[in-house]
C-alpha cells in the first residue's frame, strides 16, 4: 500500500489519477518517438505469416531443441496416460486432452516465458501447466483428486491453479480466462508505470480456442489490451473445432476472404496479428519470441493465431463422430513431435540415442507421477469448509457468539456454517 501512494506522486502529481498512466496518448500529449515507430510498424505489417522453420538452417541450439522436444513428448505422454487413468476410473468428470497441440504450449510457454510470467488457460490445461514448469506429480495428483495436487484436489482437471508458477487458472467457461489474463498484464504494467517498479516486465499469455473467439470477452479484452498497451499476448489455438461445431460453420469470413481469419482481427483493434503453423514448434517459438519481446518492451499486445489440431475428441466423453477421417489424417501427418524430431536429426541437433534417452526419461517421469498420485492421500474432511473465504469470519457468527469458524466441528467439516 505505501509504495503505491509514494509512487503516485512520482508519476503525475495531479490528484491520484493512477489510470492516467494507462490512457492512450492523444491530442497535445503526442506519442513518444518509440511508440510512434512501433505503431507505424504495426500498421505496415498489420497481419503476417510467421515464417516456417523448415526452410531455414538450424536457428536453435541443440540444448534448446532438446528442451522443446522433451516438453512436447512429456505433454503427449502425460495426456495419453490421463486417458488410461480416466478409463480406469482414477479421474472423473470432464477431462479434455491436449494431444496434437503441443507445439503451441511448448513453443510459447517453454520456449519464451519465465517462471514469473503469467498464463491463463482453459479446461484443456494440463499441458500448459507442464510447460510452465509445474511438476507432473502435482498435476497428476490433482487429476486423481488427491491432497498433493496443485489445488489439494479441490479444482480437478478443468481448474488448475499455481500461483508460484504464474498459472492463473484453468477456466471451465470459454472466454472467462481472457480478461483474467489481461488483469495480470494490467497488474504488471501498473507495477511498472504507477508503482515505479522498473523490474516489472512480466507478460501474460492467454490461451483459448477458435470457438472462444466468438464470445464477447475476446473482443472486449482486445480493445482494453490495445487501449492500455498491456503486456498481453493472445494465443488462439485454432484447432478448427469447438466440440462438434466447425470453425467455418460458426464464424463469418473476414472481409475479402473465403474463410474467417482470427489473426486479422488484431489490427482492427490496433495490434499485430500473426498467423502461425501451430504444428511447427519452431515457427510458434519465433512468433512468440517477437510478441513477448514487444510486450516486455512496453509496446503492447499481439494476437497470434496458431493453426493446430486435437488428435482426440473434445473430451474423453466425446464420441468424436463429426470430424472426417481425411481431416484427421491430414493433421496426423503434421504431428509436431515427429516434425521436430526429423528437423533435429537433419540438422545434427540430436542423435537417435539422444532422442531415445529423452523418451525414456519422459516415460519414467510419467510413470513416477502416476505412482505418486496413486499413493497420495485423499483430501481430509478438514478441507471441506476451508478456502471458501480468505477470512473465514465470512461464515458469520454462531449462536454462542463465537465466529462459526471457531466452532469445534469446523476443521472436521461438520460445523453448521449457515
Amino acid at each position: 500500500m505505501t509504495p503505491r501512494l509514494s509512487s503516485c506522486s512520482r508519476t503525475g502529481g495531479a490528484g491520484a489519477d493512477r489510470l492516467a498512466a494507462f490512457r492512450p496518448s492523444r491530442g497535445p500529449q503526442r506519442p513518444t518517438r518509440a511508440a510512434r515507430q512501433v505503431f507505424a510498424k504495426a500498421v505496415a505489417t498489420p497481419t503476417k505469416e510467421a515464417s516456417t522453420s523448415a526452410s531455414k538452417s538450424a536457428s536453435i541450439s541443440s540444448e534448446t531443441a532438446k528442451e522443446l522436444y522433451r516438453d512436447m513428448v512429456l505433454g503427449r505422454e502425460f495426456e495419453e496416460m490421463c486417458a488410461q487413468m480416466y478409463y480406469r476410473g482414477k479421474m472423473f468428470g470432464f477431462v479434455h486432452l491436449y494431444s496434437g497441440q503441443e507445439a503451441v504450449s511448448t513453443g510459447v510457454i517453454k520456449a519464451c516465458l519465465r517462471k514469473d510470467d503469467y498464463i491463463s488457460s482453459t479446461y484443456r490445461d494440463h499441458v500448459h501447466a507442464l510447460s510452465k514448469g509445474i511438476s507432473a506429480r502435482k498435476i497428476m495428483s490433482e487429476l486423481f483428486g488427491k491432497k498433493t495436487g496443485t489445488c489439494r484436489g479441490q479444482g480437478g482437471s478443468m481448474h488448475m491453479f499455481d500461483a508460484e508458477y504464474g498459472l492463473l487458472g484453468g477456466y471451465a467457461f470459454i472466454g472467462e480466462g481472457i480478461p483474467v489474463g489481461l488483469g495480470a498484464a494490467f497488474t504488471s504494467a501498473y507495477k511498472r508505470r504507477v508503482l515505479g517498479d522498473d523490474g516489472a516486465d512480466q507478460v501474460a499469455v492467454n490461451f483459448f480456442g477458435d470457438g472462444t473467439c466468438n464470445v464477447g470477452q475476446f473482443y472486449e479484452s482486445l480493445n482494453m489490451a490495445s487501449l492500455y498497451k498491456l503486456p498481453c499476448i493472445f494465443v488462439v489455438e485454432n484447432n478448427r473445432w469447438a466440440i462438434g461445431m466447425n470453425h467455418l460453420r460458426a464464424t463469418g469470413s473476414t472481409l475479402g476472404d473465403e474463410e474467417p481469419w482470427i489473426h486479422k482481427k488484431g489490427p482492427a483493434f490496433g495490434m499485430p496479428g500473426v498467423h502461425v503453423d501451430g504444428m511447427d514448434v519452431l515457427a510458434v517459438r519465433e512468433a512468440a519470441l517477437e510478441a513477448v519481446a514487444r510486450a516486455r518492451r512496453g509496446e503492447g499486445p499481439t494476437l497470434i493465431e496458431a493453426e493446430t489440431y486435437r488428435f482426440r475428441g473434445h473430451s474423453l466423453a466425446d464420441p468424436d463422430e463429426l470430424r472426417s477421417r481425411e481431416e484427421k489424417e491430414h493433421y496426423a501427418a503434421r504431428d509436431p513431435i515427429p516434425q521436430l524430431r526429423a528437423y533435429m536429426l537433419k540438422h545434427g541437433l540430436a542423435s537417435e540415442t539422444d532422442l531415445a534417452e529423452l523418451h525414456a526419461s519422459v516415460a519414467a517421469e510419467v510413470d513416477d507421477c502416476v505412482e505418486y498420485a496413486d499413493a497420495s492421500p485423499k483430501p481430509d474432511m478438514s478441507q471441506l469448509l476451508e478456502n471458501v473465504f480468505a477470512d473465514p469470519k465470512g461464515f458469520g457468527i454462531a449462536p454462542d457468539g463465537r465466529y462459526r469458524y471457531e466452532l469445534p466441528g469446523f476443521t472436521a467439516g461438520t460445523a453448521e456454517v449457515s
Partner: protein
Amino acid sequence: MQFLARASAASLRRSQAATEAFQRLGACGYATTQLTVRDALNSALDEEMERDDKVFIIGEEVGEYQGAYKITRGLLQKYGAKRAGFTGIAVGSAFQGLKPVVEFMTFNFSMQAIDQIVNSAAKHHYMSAGQITCPIVFRGPNGPAAGVAAQHSQDFAPWYASVPGLKVIVPYDAEDNRGLLKAAIRDPDPVVFLENEIMYGESFEVSEEVLDKDFVLPIGKAKIQREGTDLTIVASGKLVGFALQAAAELDKDGVSVEVVNLRSIKPLDRETIAASVKKTHRLLTVEEGWPQHGLGSEIIAVVVEEAFDDLDAPPERVCGVEIPMPYATPLEDAALPHVSDIVRVARRMFNLE
C-alpha cells in the same frame, strides 16, 4: 451457436431418430407406457415446433451434435438448421413475436447471458407497459453433476426464482417434463426450465393422457407426489425422487410422509404447501442448492405465514453445504445431500434417534 427452425411443409422430413421417438410414444394403445425424461423433452419440443412455426430452438451444439445431452436428437434432420448466435438474439426475436427455446448446454453457462435474461427478458413487459412480450423458454440441465467441480456443479433455481417477471419450472419425471415444457413453450412470458442431467436417462411410467399432443400441465401448480399424514417433505426436480426414497425408508419407522413436488418454483403453489402442512403439522424441505436465501428458506417463510399455528415442530432444511463444489470425490460427497440425510433429519424431527 445454432438454431433449428421449421422449414416449409414440403421440406419436412422426419429423421430416423425422431421417428423412433415417435414410435415409442406411439405405443399408446396401452393404458400406460414407459417414457424417459429425454424422450419426454424431445417429443415436447418436436410437437410444439410442429404445432407453431414461430417456435424455434437456439443454442450451442443443438444441431449436428444433437444437443450436448441429445435432447434435440433428430430435430435438425426434421426441421433443418439456420445458424446465429444466441441468447440476446433469441430475446430480441421473442420481443418481435417469435417463440425461441434457448438451450443452454448447462445452466452454468447461462451466467454469460444473465443480463439478457434478467434485465431484458424479465423486465421488458413491465418497462414497456405491456407493449412488449417475451414468449421465450430458457432450458437445459441445472444443478450439481458428478465430478465436474465448482464451475459446472451448482443449482441456479433460487437465482432465477428471485427475479420478478420470470416463471421458473423444475420438473421431476417424464410427465412433468413433457407437460411443463409444452406449457412453457405456449406461455406468453419468459420461462426458465431447469432440467437435471442425471435424470435424462430415467424412465417413468406415463398414462395415455400424457402422450396426447395437447397435454399441458398448469404452471404454478404443485403436485402431491405421495400422500401421507405425519410429515410434509417439499422438493423439486431430482430431489423429489430422493424424497420418495426417504419416505419409503421412514415408512418402516411408522412415519407417514407426504411428498410435495413443487413443479414450478415461481409462481409457488402456496396453497398446496400450506394445506399439506396443515394436515401433517411438520415440514422438511429438500434441495441441492445452498442454504442461505434458498428454496427451503422461501418455503419455510410460506409455511410460517400460512400455517404457523399448525406446526408441531420447527421446520427443517436439507441442503447442499455452503461451499463451491469440490472436485475430489469424498469432499463432493460430503457437500451434497443424500437420501440418508433426509431420513436422518426426519427422524430427528420425531426424536427417533
